């Protein structure tokens, strides 16, 4: 890299919603720092580029790639391998890449159910039941579509990852902080964190940043947020709302509980945790105020979709990763 050449930056979206890219753009004028310090070589949402351009780059020539989105298709996997090859630092950016996020909820269903729902339910206008094919012969030749996997995976289940930035999306002020850090590293003023670290997030859980008052927990009933008027000063869990904040990494400034909405877990597990859902399950169940199995089950009926709610953002990164119907084993 010559003195005048800026380090290269890339951002890719796999199975995602685009929110992570918007979050990066949402750092406002800080984007000028990005432009000043980096050469953006590949960022599908923001600029035009072709895969073959990336393939032509020398290995490890991209200094920093922020990869958002989960791995759901052969294309996603292919590009994940490509970006790994071409990047020095590959960051799993956002909840989808880190833990699976919303796309990974499909791991509770079979591929058939997935496709049936998308292409034949009442909100889809598809009277002839046209289904996408991975390969179609047309007069000009053969055109292909990527194959969808039945199980959504995280980025690090496909390629080795250097850093993780959790969040759905990662908070813009955290993104700005990370960009600052990288710029400082480039200027020799700071050191990179140890490989495998979670960056742009705190070292504890959301409760650490939550302004609500906390007391002993004893749950006699679970309520849904839309059915009660919670006290704005008191911990939501103590009021029977299943707030995931206690098991979710902090760094987001507890924006949701501060605004009256329970944390839904987008920042993923705390440091060193193997399975996010296990932690949330264990904590919440332990403080159910009953010793009678029948009563315990009646209280648990207040959580109508435990797997979906507890693993909302973290299914693909969990120990089981997907439900049996999704595995589709031969």
């Amino acid at each position, binding site marked *: 890299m010559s003195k005048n050449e800026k380090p290269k930056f890339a951002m890719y979206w796999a199975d995602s919603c685009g929110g992570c890219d918007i979050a990066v753009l949402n750092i406002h004028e800080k984007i000028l720092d990005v432009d000043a310090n980096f050469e953006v070589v590949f960022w599908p949402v923001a600029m035009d580029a072709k895969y073959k351009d990336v393939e032509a780059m020398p290995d490890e020539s991209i200094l920093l790639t922020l990869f958002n989105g989960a791995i759901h298709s052969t294309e996603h996997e292919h590009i994940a391998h490509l970006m790994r090859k071409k990047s020095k630092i590959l960051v799993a950016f956002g909840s989808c890449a880190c833990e699976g996020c919303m796309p990974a909820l499909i791991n509770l269903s079979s591929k058939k159910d997935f496709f049936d729902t998308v292409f034949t339910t009442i909100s889809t206008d598809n009277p002839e039941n046209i289904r996408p094919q991975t390969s179609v012969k047309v007069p000009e030749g053969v055109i292909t579509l990527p194959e969808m996997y039945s199980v959504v995976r995280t980025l690090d289940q496909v390629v080795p990852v250097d850093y993780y930035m959790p969040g759905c999306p990662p908070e813009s002020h955290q993104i700005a902080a990370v960009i600052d850090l990288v710029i400082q590293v480039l200027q020799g003023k700071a050191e990179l964190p140890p490989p495998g670290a979670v960056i742009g997030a705190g*070292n*504890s*859980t*959301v*409760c*650490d940043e939550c302004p609500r008052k*906390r*007391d*002993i*927990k*004893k749950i006699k009933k679970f309520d849904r947020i839309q059915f009660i008027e919670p006290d704005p000063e008191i911990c939501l869990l103590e009021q029977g709302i299943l707030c995931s*904040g*206690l*098991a979710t990494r*902090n760094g987001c400034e507890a924006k949701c509980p501060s605004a009256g909405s329970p944390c839904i877990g987008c920042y993923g*597990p*705390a*440091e*060193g*945790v*193997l399975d996010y859902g296990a*932690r*949330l399950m*264990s*904590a*919440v169940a*332990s*403080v159910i105020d009953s010793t009678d199995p029948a009563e315990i089950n009646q209280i648990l009926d207040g959580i109508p979709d435990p797997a979906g709610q507890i693993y909302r953002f973290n299914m693909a990164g969990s120990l089981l990763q997907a439900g049996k119907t999704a595995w589709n084993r031969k």
Partner: protein
Amino acid sequence: MSEKIGVYVCHCGTNIAGIVNVEEVTQWAGSRLKERGVVIARDYKFMCSSLGQELIEKDIKELGLTRVVVAACSPHLHERTFRTACERAGLNPYLSELVSIREQVSWVHTDKIAATAKAKAVLSGGVERVIHNEPLEPLKVPIHPDSLVVGGGIAGIQAALELADGGNHVYLVEREPSIGGHMAQFDKTFPTLDCSACILTPRMVQAGNHPNITLLTWSEVTKVDGYVGNFEVVIKKKARYVNTELCTGCGICVEKCPMKVVDDVFEAGMAKRKVIYTPFPQAVPNFPVLDAPNCTFFQKGTCKACEKFCPTNAIDFNQKDEDITVKVGNIVLATGYDLFNPRRIPQYGYGRLENIITSLEFERLCNASGPTGGNIVLKDGVTPPKTVGIVHCVGSRDQNYNGYCSAICCMQSIKFAHLVHERTGAEIYNFYIDIRTPGKSYEEFYQRVLDEGTHFVRGKVAEVTDVARSPEEEGKLIIQVEDTLIGKQRRIPVDMVILSAGLEPRYDAKETGKLFGIACSADGWYIERHPKLDPIATMTEGVYIAGCVQGPKDIPATVAQGAAAAARIQGKIQQGEITLEPIRASINEDQCSGCRICNDLCPFSAILFHEDRAVSEVNAALCQGCGTCVAACPAGAISGTGFSNEQVLAQIEGLLLLNIEKIESNKVPA
């Protein structure tokens, strides 16, 4: 992976080797587990022998082993043995693991191939686990030389006297006005027929006068903080309304008090007492107590006869309850038992029909200082009974009430038979299920009473009724029973029925237990550390139990337990400090978010919340190492030594043979 692991597979003679192919397991460990860090794998006939232990010690010294795994019997037998062997060789004892391939493999499976395969998996589990073991150091805490004994019955008195005679200061707390407990209520004790008060009161006096005993009667413990060696206890001294500095125990106040109420504690409801009273003549301390809820002055503002007549001006109606805080190193709980209430068995007629009394009520009847001066008479106070029925097992050995045997009722019932015979010459029937006379001279006592002519009927009494079916039953209490030895129903008319009611835990035993951090079993007795080998210690270090709190027992056993608790405490005091097993939880303050999920999960109150820093903390000395908070913490901020996440997860991987180069077939042949 840089650990050097030594694996030792024990034959245990043929106990293990007869079913598990120990050589195969050893060879497998040496070759297949090599990449996991196993540098040496040996098998030996008896690993627990000194030669077996020397194998380990030698390898630690010569091969520089950093971890040791022994596959042999249960850790409950020899975990300490192998830990000590490691320690001798210079390896931290907690860097060793003992996995059971005997009790849990060779002794319970018959298929040799399957057992051998399972032994390999179990061993692999141990190897994976031990890699994550940490070199733990036991925790040492200092011991305060003072002790607290709660309960002034014979168990508490014995414990307090032994501790005091040993040169240590003891607080003896009793909630009644005098020490003595139930034993003070008895007339005679079996089998010697000693007068109960005669053998008890010297001890009571000794306890009352002992320079090393601070006697706190009419007092209760209200709060216990701290941990073994360092308890801080709040004791509420209830207001006696008598200034004990001035009182001489002359008894004039009691004499002059115009109000009488039923004494349902000491006299078991058989007699009345004054409102200002000492419970019995030999009370220690001999200061009376004023029963404020029943006192005319407190209710209506008049009387004050006691104050008028007291020669030393010792009555103080303004006295208040007083809380004192004491520091002690160890606590003995000796709060005794309550009697089963026979009202719960309506067919026995207790409380409904006259002349049906409980064991404690009969003791009062027999007692020379009791309501009838020791005369065994019917309710009219005059007529002695001509026939008496004594019912064993009332509320005991009964699935409807208490399933356990109350241990003393047979001997007590036989004693009653003897006393009735001696004093009234009445015809006596004892109704029993079995005769339980296990103690010294107990069987002989039973024989003696048999010789006296008491009729022993083997049958559980079905009903005690006053409904006569024939002229000779008129005006009598009829005991309906199946005499199982002759196989016939019998109706036996008697004048008096004595119900040997069973022993039950105190009505507030559970709350008291919680105060001290100890648990009750399903029957409500306090749980001992080990039912066979450690009946006086509890799971909470520093809290001991003695006497009937641990379960029904006779006086010799009670005294032995009181002495045992004292001896245990003396040993601790002498050492000056106590070593605690290093299996504890600890909270990483940086990771703790202050969510407070853990705060209510500890039954030992070992988790505190710091409001200022908004984090929780585990008190290592109070922590018993159960690991519940470790499992519950949603942030993963609580770790537990000895059973860490890493250790258990690694053990799971090992048991499932996950890290062996090629996955072993987990399938066991049919």
